[in-house]
C-alpha cells in the first residue's frame, strides 16, 4: 500500500521533557491506523504536531510523497489533515451548520448566508449518517451526535486524514457502534483515519494496522492478525504485563470502608453501595461521566452527598468537609494533581506537611520546624521522591514526583482508607511502576485502597476486585483473575455481565 501521509523523525520538547524523540509514522490511503501508548508516551503530542495545533521542533511531513508544512492548523487543514479533539471543540450555542462552517462562513452581501450554510451542511451530515436539523443548536445534541458533527466539519474541509483522539471515551456502547459504522464508511470513501484509544478491544475491531509509542519513540508495529490484546499491551508497556503490575496474594482483613446508598449530584436518582476490606485494592472502572469522581468527592466531603452513609472501620462517619473525612481516617489523592493535589508554588516540605501539620508538627499555634523537616525527609525517602531538597518548589518536579509528594502528604497521616482518583494520569512509566509498587506495599500493611482509573490495564492489573460504575451505580463487581476488558466495557455501558459476583 502506498503511503498517503508520512512523518519522519518527529521531535518535540517541552521544558524539562523530551516528549517525542524522533518518531516515524506511515498512513496508507483508506487505512485505519491505531496509535497506541501509555499516558505520556507521546501520542497526543504527535497528533497535535500532525494537525498543526502544536508545531513540532523537527521532522519531515509528507503528503503523497510531497513535503507539506503542518506547523499551523491552517497549514495542516490545507494539506488535508483534521483533528477531532478529545474534548469536543464545538460552540454549543451555535447551530450545527454554523459550527460546520465556523471561520469559513458563506456570505451574501457581506452578511452571513445562513440558508446556504444549512443547505450545504446536509451533504456532510449525510456522509456521517447523521439525521439532524442543521439549524439546531449543537449544545442540545447528545455527545455522540456532537462528535459526528465535528467529523462532518472535518469532511467539509475535504480532509483526507482524520485524526480521532479517544473518540469513544464518553460514548455509550450503541453510540460507539454507530461511530464504527461511520468510520468504515469513511474508509470506503478513501478517507484515512488515525485512531487513538485506550480501549484495546475497539482497536482489534476496527484497526488495519497498529503503531505503538513508548517514551516518545516508536516501540513497534502490528498489522492484521498480529493485532491482539496481549501483543499490544506488551509493546505498550515494554515488558511482561504481569511483572509490571506486581501483586502478591495476602489475607484481607475486616471491612475498612463501607459505603451505603451514596447518591451524588451527578446522578441524584442512583445510589452506590460497596465495601473495601483492610489490605484490599479495589479499582473503580467506568466511562467518563459515570459519576466516579463525584462519588469519591462526596465520600471525602468535597461536594455534599445527596444521601447515603460512609462507615470507616465499623464507625459511621459524618462528613461535611474534607477535614471531617480526614478525621475519620480517609485520604484522597484527587484527579487533578495540579489544581487539587499539590500546591505548585510551595516547597516539597510545605506540601508534605500540609495535612498533618495540625496533628504532628506544631507547638501550640506555632510550626514545629524540626517535626516538619523530619516528616518531609521521611516522605522523600520512603517514596523516593526525586528532588534536590525539601525546599524545592513542587512546580519544578516531574509529574510523577509531584504525585509522590501528594501521596507523601497523605501517608504522613497514616489513613485507614486511601482514595485515589486517576493516580497515574500524565506521569511516566517509571513513576507509574513505583506508584503501583507503593499501592501494593500499603495494601500489604493493611490499608484499604479504592482507586478510580480510566486505564483498563491498570484497573485489571492492580485490583483485587473491580467495581464497574454506570450512571452513579455500581453496575457490577469483578474479582481478580479472568477479568476481561469486554466484561468491564459491557458493564460500563449499561450492558449486563453474565459473570456478576462470582
Amino acid at each position, binding site marked *: 500500500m502506498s503511503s498517503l501521509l508520512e512523518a519522519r523523525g518527529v521531535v518535540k520538547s517541552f521544558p524539562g521533557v523530551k516528549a517525542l524523540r524522533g518518531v516515524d509514522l506511515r498512513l496508507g490511503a483508506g487505512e485505519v491506523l491505531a496509535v497506541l501508548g501509555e499516558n505520556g508516551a507521546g501520542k497526543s503530542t504527535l497528533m497535535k504536531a500532525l494537525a498543526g495545533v502544536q508545531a513540532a521542533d523537527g521532522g519531515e511531513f509528507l503528503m503523497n510523497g510531497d513535503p507539506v508544512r503542518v506547523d499551523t492548523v491552517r497549514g495542516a487543514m490545507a494539506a488535508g489533515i483534521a483533528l477531532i479533539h478529545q474534548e469536543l471543540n464545538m460552540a454549543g450555542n451555535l447551530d450545527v451548520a454554523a459550527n460546520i462552517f465556523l471561520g469559513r462562513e458563506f456570505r451574501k452581501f457581506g452578511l452571513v448566508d445562513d440558508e446556504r450554510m444549512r443547505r450545504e451542511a446536509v451533504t456532510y451530515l449525510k456522509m456521517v449518517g447523521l439525521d439532524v436539523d442543521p439549524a439546531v443548536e449543537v449544545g442540545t445534541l447528545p455527545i455522540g451526535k456532537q462528535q459526528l458533527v465535528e467529523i462532518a466539519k472535518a469532511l467539509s474541509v475535504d480532509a483526507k486524514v482524520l485524526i480521532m483522539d479517544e473518540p469513544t471515551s464518553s460514548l455509550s456502547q450503541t453510540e460507539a457502534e454507530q461511530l464504527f459504522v461511520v468510520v468504515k464508511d469513511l474508509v470506503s470513501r478513501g478517507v484515512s483515519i488515525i485512531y487513538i484509544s485506550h480501549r484495546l478491544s475497539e482497536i482489534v475491531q476496527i484497526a488495519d494496522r497498529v503503531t505503538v509509542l513508548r517514551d516518545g519513540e516508536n516501540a513497534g508495529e502490528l498489522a492484521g492478525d498480529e493485532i491482539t490484546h496481549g501483543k499490544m499491551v506488551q509493546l505498550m508497556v515494554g515488558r511482561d504485563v504481569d511483572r509490571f503490575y506486581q501483586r502478591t496474594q495476602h489475607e484481607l482483613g475486616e471491612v475498612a470502608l463501607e459505603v451505603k446508598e451514596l447518591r451524588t449530584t451527578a446522578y441524584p436518582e442512583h445510589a452506590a453501595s460497596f465495601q473495601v476490606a483492610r489490605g484490599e485494592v479495589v479499582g473503580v472502572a467506568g466511562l467518563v461521566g459515570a459519576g466516579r469522581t463525584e462519588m469519591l468527592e462526596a465520600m471525602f466531603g468535597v461536594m455534599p452527598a445527596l444521601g447515603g452513609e460512609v462507615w470507616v472501620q465499623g464507625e459511621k462517619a459524618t462528613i461535611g*468537609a*474534607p477535614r471531617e473525612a480526614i478525621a475519620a481516617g480517609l485520604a484522597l489523592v484527587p484527579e487533578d494533581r495540579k489544581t*487539587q*493535589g499539590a500546591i505548585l*508554588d*510551595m516547597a516539597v516540605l510545605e506540601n508534605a506537611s500540609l495535612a498533618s501539620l*495540625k496533628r504532628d508538627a506544631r507547638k501550640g499555634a506555632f*510550626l514545629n520546624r524540626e517535626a516538619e523537616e523530619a516528616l518531609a525527609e521521611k516522605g522523600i525517602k520512603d517514596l523516593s521522591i526525586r528532588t534536590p531538597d525539601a525546599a524545592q518548589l513542587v512546580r519544578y518536579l516531574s509529574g510523577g514526583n509531584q504525585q509522590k509528594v501528594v501521596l507523601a502528604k497523605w501517608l504522613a497521616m497514616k489513613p485507614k482508607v486511601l482514595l485515589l482518583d486517576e493516580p497515574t494520569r500524565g506521569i511516566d512509566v517509571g513513576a507509574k511502576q513505583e506508584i503501583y509498587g507503593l499501592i501494593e506495599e500499603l495494601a500489604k500493611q493493611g490499608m484499604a485502597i479504592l482507586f478510580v482509573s480510566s486505564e483498563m490495564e491498570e484497573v485489571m492489573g492492580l485490583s483485587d476486585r473491580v467495581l464497574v460504575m454506570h450512571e452513579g451505580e455500581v453496575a457490577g463487581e469483578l474479582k481478580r483473575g479472568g477479568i476481561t476488558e469486554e466484561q468491564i466495557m459491557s458493564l460500563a455501558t449499561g450492558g449486563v455481565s453474565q459473570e456478576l459476583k462470582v
Partner: protein
Amino acid sequence: MKKILGILITLVAVYVLTAMVGDNFLSAYNQEKLLERTALFGILSIGVAFVIITGGIDLSIGSVVCLTGCGLPWLMVKHEWPPAIAVPMVLVVAALIGLSHGLLITKLNLQPFVVTLCGLLIYRGLTRGFTEDQTQGFGGEFSGLRAVANEKISLTAEFGIPWTWVILVVIAVMAWIFLNKTIYGRYLRALGNNEDAARFSGVNTDRMIILAYVFSSMLAGLGGMLFVMNVGSAQPSNFGNFYELYAIAAAVLGGCSLRGGEGTILGVVIGAAVMRVLYNMINLVTWIPTHIEFAVVGAVILVAVISDELVKRAAARRRVRG
C-alpha cells in the same frame, strides 16, 4: 530576601534621588514625618496584604478608615464616651465589618470585589448618615490619646521615632510571625496558592479567609483612628477616599500577587514607604509640578512591577535550563 530585593532597590533609588534633588529631604524633621506617614499607610497595607494573600481583595478600606476616623471623635466628643471604651468599641465594629465580608465571601460564595465594593459605598454612606455629614474633630481635647499618633520618642534634640512607627513595627512583627511561624499563616498561604488543594488537605479554608478579612478591616479601623488622631478632624464625605488603592498599591509593590499566595510583610512596609517617599519627593522637588503627582506615582509603581516581573522570569528561565 530575594522576593523583596526589587522593591528595596526601588526604595533606595527613590530615596537617594530625592535626597539629591530635593530640598532638606534628609532633615531630621522630614525623616520623622516620612516614618510617621509610612506607618499610618503601612498599617492599612499590612491589613490588605492578608486578604490579597488569600487571593481576595478589600476595596472597603478607605471607607472603614472614614467610619472609624469619624466614629472615634463622634463617640468621644459628641457622645462623651471615655477613650478606654470608645477605642475598643470602634475596633469591635471594624472586626464585625471584616467578619461580615468574610462570611459573605465564603458562605454565600460572593466575589470579594463585589462584597467589598458594596462595603466601600455602605460604610461611607453610614458615616455620613450618623455624623449628619458634619466634620468630626477632637476640638483640641484628648491630647493624651492623640499623642499616640502625633508624638515621638525623642532620641536626639532633633530626631525622634514617631509612636505610629512603633505601632507599625509591632504590628508588622506580629503579622510576620503569624504568616511565617504559625500553622495558620501556612494555611493562609497554602489556600492563597491553591484553595482546592488546601481544602482537600483538610484546611478549614473558609475560616482562614474570614480571618484575613477580619484582620484587614481591623487594621483599617486602627489606621482610621490613628489618622484622625494625627490630623485632628475628619470629614465624612472624603476622609480616607482612595486609601484602599494606596494600600493595595503598596501591597502589590511589596510583592503580593493579586493571584494570591505570595507576599511578605517587610515588602509591604517597604512598598508603603516607597509611596510616601514619592509623594514627599513631589513636594520637595521644585521642578516637578505637583498636579502631575498621580502620573509620577503611577509610573513608578508600574516600572517597579514590570522590573519585578522581568526579574522573576529571568529566574524561572535559569531554573528550566538548570
